[in-house]
């Protein structure tokens, strides 16, 4: 079974709309991170939220974390065509201080101009 599962798997919206992606996980975590991947490129770190935090903002990004439900959401406000990418949540559940991450399968976001 996988640690992170994103929902929806694919999302298509118009430019200017908000996009919400959800992530669920199974075990206790140290933190949860969101990454973006443009087609054919590497993953880019977007934001990290610690297990004792409930909400975090970075520019047009808003991340929430509910450890009781083992879930997180990523909200992108006022989306742009350039936001078209795959988005992955990743959890750090390691017992050691290693930074080893467990990724979900990702949500593919298409923002239409």
């Amino acid at each position, binding site marked *: 079974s996988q640690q992170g599962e994103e929902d929806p798997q694919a999302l298509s919206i118009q430019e200017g709309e908000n996009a919400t992606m959800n992530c669920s996980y199974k075990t206790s975590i*140290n933190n949860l991170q969101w*990454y973006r991947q443009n087609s054919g490129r590497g*993953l880019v770190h977007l934001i990290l939220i610690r297990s004792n935090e409930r909400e975090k903002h970075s520019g047009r990004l808003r991340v929430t974390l509910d450890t009781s439900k083992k879930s997180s959401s990523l909200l992108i406000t006022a989306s742009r065509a350039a936001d078209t990418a795959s988005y992955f949540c*990743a959890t750090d559940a390691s017992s050691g201080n290693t*930074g080893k991450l467990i990724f979900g*399968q990702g949500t593919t976001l298409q923002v239409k101009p």
Partner: protein
Amino acid sequence: EAGVTQFPSHSVIEKGQTVTLRCDPISGHDNLYWYRRVMGKEIKFLLHFVKESKQDESGMPNNRFLAERTGGTYSTLKVQPAELEDSGVYFCASSQDYGRESPLHFGNGTRLTVT
């Protein structure tokens, strides 16, 4: 700063052959990770180097995979002999600090196809 670079970007080999993937981390990053994404599945951790030492290789699928990081700079991941199920995208990532809050910087990946 130069990012994480991986070579080659694509590799097509036949089953039973050997392939070596290379990763150059960001200069000064002691932590180097290998991940892979097999088609249709999630990105999975393979192993983690701190400088030249293997810190965690719990994700290595079997002994056909050998990772090295001689001198603590670049790393290689060798698959020998390659099997069909090894096809996928292999990502390398590096981070500066040793800790769970250090963001990973990823390379563009090597797409490996085993036929």
